Structure formats: C-alpha cells, structure tokens
C-alpha cells in the first residue's frame, strides 16, 4: 500500500512535466520586407534560415548553395571508425529548407558590399538588405604537394575530412593497417580548422582498433602537430598529452605536413630544422583549411595577419556582425573568430546573430552575446569520450558541472556522441534546438 502515495507523486511530477512541455508562446513575428541573402546551406545556413523565418514575417529570405546533399560531418568520424555507413552522414538539403525561404541552387561567386549584391556562378545578381555568410570552409588539399584525394583508401592513405565516401575509404585503409601494424601517422594543419578535436579522436580510435585486434604491439603511432600544444585550450592539451603518453602515442610539436609521396609512402614535414621525412604505413591527412574564395577574395575578410591570409570574415566575436559592413553577419566555420569551428558553436552563434539582425530591423539594440562556447566530445576509445566544453577565454564551461566531469573518460559522453548528437544537430538545423 505504501506504493500508492509514491505513485501519485510520480503522476503529479509527470503532469507538471507535461504542462512544462507545452510549446512556448511564439514571440510575435516582426513584420518586414527586408531582403535577406544567406550564402551557404550547411549547418549554419539552414539554422539561420529557420530562425529568421520564425522571427520575421514578410521578409524575403534567399539561400544560395549549389550542393544538394547535406553532410552531417561529425558523423564522418564514426564512419571512419567502421561504426556507421556513409549514408548515416548524408541527407537532402531540400528536406530542411524552411517554409517561406527560397533556395537558389547556385553558388555565391562574388559579393559587392558597396552595391549590396551577391552574384552567383550562374551570373544571377541578388540584391540584399542583409547578408549572412555561412559558406563553411574550403579544404586545401592542393597545399600539400603530391596529395591526391582520388587515392584515399589506397596504399594506407586516409582522410576523414574529405567527405562521406572518403571517410569510409579511410576506414578500409585504417582497418588494413590495424591488421598488419607498422607506422601510423596523424596530425593537424597549421591553419584554423573545423573540429580541432577530430584528428586527436581518430588517433585514439586507431589505437583502440589496434588493441582490439591484438596488434598494438606491432604498431607505432605518431602525432605531428605544427603548434606547440595538442589543443588550443591548455588544460585540455595537457590532459590529451597524458592520455597519449598512456596509450603510447609519440608526439612531435612544430611539425607541419608539406608534401606526401603516395607511392613511396613518405610524408614530409616543415620543421624549424628544415624538412623532415616520415615513412608511414597509414596516414590520416588533415589538410590546411581556409575561407572559400568568395569571401577570401572579397573586402569582407580580415585585413591583417594569418586570418587575412586564410580569408576568414572579419566579424565582431560577440555579435558576429561584420566590423566594416554592419548589414553583413557571418556564422559557422567562415566566421573569423577564435576557437570553435564546430556544429556546437553554430548552435550558440546563430540565435545571437539572428537577434542582432532582427534588432536592427526593429531599430533596437540587441543584448545577445556569444562568448565563444563550443564543445567537442573527444572520443578516447570506442565506447568512451570526454565532453570538452570551453569558451573564448579557455575556460572550461561544463553543461553539467559536478555531474559530467569534463576531462574524464566516460561512457555517458560516448552515448551522447553516438545516440544524441545527430538528433540534436538535425533539430538545430530546423531551428528547434
């Protein structure tokens, strides 16, 4: 009998939860005839389109992107680990274009911020009142002499970043390596990059697969980083350094991949002492990354320093508004802000950017502020990961302080990566998370 009150209490809690689950009252949409152009329909472009369509009534929103497939890129790592099919990472952009948004299947080829027009690769001129840059970034494989993406999957050549099919080809090459052993080469580029945790994760995963096959003793794993640390956040870098030591991964700092001889299986690295060659049996090539030409060749990019060379859009790091052209914003990988080029940053950047844009239409000031939050479930073996969350100031900003410890290898973090991350991403690009 003692169970009944407990049950009623549970029912009351459920009822309260159900009431809280009722959709929040929609904010009154702002009436406007503004013409908004979004360049790019990836994670950031779609999320921005969805949020703008929710907040505005009567705006003319145009999204430009020639690519019809949508890639869930965080899934590439799972494909390259042999855990998912490439199809897991591929969707259709058409399924996610919000109602009321026009999708033009053309690439933005030129931006004239003076005339406020975008010209597409098909020669169409699209005038705008507001422009949202969401073009993502370009993988600069050509910067590595001798690199040929067509040969990914052959002769021990892998590259998780190159795309869904290449991620699977990388799995085949890595799996063959895990059967035989030899030298495995890993690393990252000297440029800014998306998901700086991904090259680290893939090294951990390779180590794990070798162990599972009983061949870890036959393999030597080397991680070459151009920087002086394994990760930009010192406390995380230190933790990964310790884990690499524990797993027997050798680390070389100040090594930047410059050339690769695919036939001889030799990679050349720029170092302070001159070029250095490394023989390999498997390599995961992570290419230099830079802004797509449409931004890099425009007045919108940074004017000085490495970010000018790489071409990232010069926006204010807290509002994501362009510093010289107030009607232009940048979200996602193209934004020239420190840290996060991740889907997790997109999730927190987009609502801030949208609020600033809507505020401008309304003639008010927005108080929304992006502090650089980003996160990375850093896989340390298949079945465990560390949830690393940080901000512009290298602070750890755990979502679940005291519950999910940020630098601990946990099963729950793996479950989040494997089960919850893709649904969260899909909810995000539809403006629902």
């Amino acid at each position, binding site marked *: 009998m003692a169970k*009944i009150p407990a049950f009623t209490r549970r029912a009351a809690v459920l009822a309260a939860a159900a009431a809280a689950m009722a959709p929040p009252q929609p904010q009154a949409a702002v009436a406007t005839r503004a013409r908004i152009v979004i360049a790019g329909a990836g994670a950031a472009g779609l999320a921005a389109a969805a949020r703008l369509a929710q907040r505005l009534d009567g705006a003319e929103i145009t999204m430009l992107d020639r690519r019809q497939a949508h890639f869930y890129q965080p899934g590439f790592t799972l494909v390259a680990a042999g855990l998912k099919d490439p199809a897991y990472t591929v969707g259709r952009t058409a399924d996610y274009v919000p109602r009321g948004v026009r999708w033009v299947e053309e690439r933005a080829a030129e931006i004239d911020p003076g005339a406020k027009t975008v010209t597409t690769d098909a020669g169409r001129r699209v005038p705008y009142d507001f422009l949202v840059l969401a073009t993502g970034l370009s993988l600069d494989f050509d910067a590595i002499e001798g690199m040929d993406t067509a040969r990914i999957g052959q002769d021990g050549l892998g590259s998780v970043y190159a795309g869904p099919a290449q991620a699977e080809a990388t799995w085949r090459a890595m799996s063959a390596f895990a059967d035989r052993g030899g030298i495995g080469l890993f690393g990252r580029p000297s440029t800014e990059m998306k998901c700086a945790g991904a090259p680290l994760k893939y090294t951990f995963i390779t180590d794990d697969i070798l162990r599972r096959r009983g061949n870890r003793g036959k393999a030597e794993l080397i991680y070459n980083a151009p920087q002086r640390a394994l990760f930009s956040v010192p406390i995380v870098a230190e933790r990964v350094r310790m884990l690499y030591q524990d797993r027997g991964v050798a680390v070389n700092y100040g090594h930047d991949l410059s050339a690769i001889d695919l036939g001889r299986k030799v990679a050349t690295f720029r170092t302070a002492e001159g070029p250095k060659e490394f023989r390999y049996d498997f390599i995961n090539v992570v290419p230099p990354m830079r802004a797509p030409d449409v931004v890099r060749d425009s007045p919108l990019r940074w004017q000085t320093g490495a970010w000018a060379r790489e071409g990232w859009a010069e926006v204010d790091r807290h509002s994501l508004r362009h510093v010289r052209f107030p009607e232009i914003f940048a979200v996602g990988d193209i934004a020239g802000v420190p840290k996060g080029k991740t889907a997790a940053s997109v999730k927190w950047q987009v609502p801030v950017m949208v609020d600033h844009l809507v505020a401008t239409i309304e003639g008010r000031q927005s108080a929304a502020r992006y502090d650089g939050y980003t996160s990375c479930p850093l896989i340390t*073996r298949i079945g465990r990961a560390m949830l690393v969350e940080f901000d512009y100031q290298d602070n750890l900003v755990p979502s679940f302080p005291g519950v999910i410890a940020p630098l601990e290898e946990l099963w729950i973090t793996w479950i989040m990566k494997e089960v919850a991350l893709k649904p*969260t991403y899909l*909810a995000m690009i539809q403006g629902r998370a």
Partner: protein
Amino acid sequence: MKELDIGTFVAVLQEMMGPLLWVILVAAALATLGFVYVLVRDRGLVARRLVWSEALGVIGGVGGVLLMHEITHSDFADIGGPIDWVVVAAIFVLGAVGTVVGAYTVLGLFFRRAA
C-alpha cells in the same frame, strides 16, 4: 548544450525516435490510465499480482540495460565514472518501473482470476 530547455529536449527526442516517440508515450499513458483504473477498481494493490509484476520488472530493468548496449557500440567495460553507474541504474529503474506498471495493469485487466 549550455542550457537545456524542455522544448529542445522534446525536439531532440523527436529527431531521435521519430514516430516511435509517440507510440511509446501513448503506450505509457495507456498503461498509467489502466493502472489507475485497476487500483481504483480493486481499492488498492493486490499483493500477489504485485509480486508477479515486480518479478517481471527485474527482467524489464535488465532488458533496458541490455537494449542500451545493443543499440550502441559500447559494452560494460566502457563504464568509466560514477555518472555512468548512475545512468545504468536509471535505465534499470526506468525499465523496471515501466514493466511493473505495464505488467500489473495487464494482469489486473486480463488475468484477474489467475493473479
């Protein structure tokens, strides 16, 4: 995941499970209604029936934990920190409570004489 609001949570669950989410919610609601009906009808819990459904509940709890391992690429050796044990326990409790309520209701509605 800086802040977790209920709308986000529901949206994510919808993306994760699709129509299955509604099937589960409807099943849970029906079981709860049926449970309340049986309770009111019998003016309290029937001990014999409760023991049976609790026995099934243990199986349900274990089943929940096994299912979690089935649908993910991980196994028991991956359980790392305290929170992992809490999650395993929570999955067990969820599976067990759901099974107890469901089994008690089914027994009460359809096998009233037997149990």
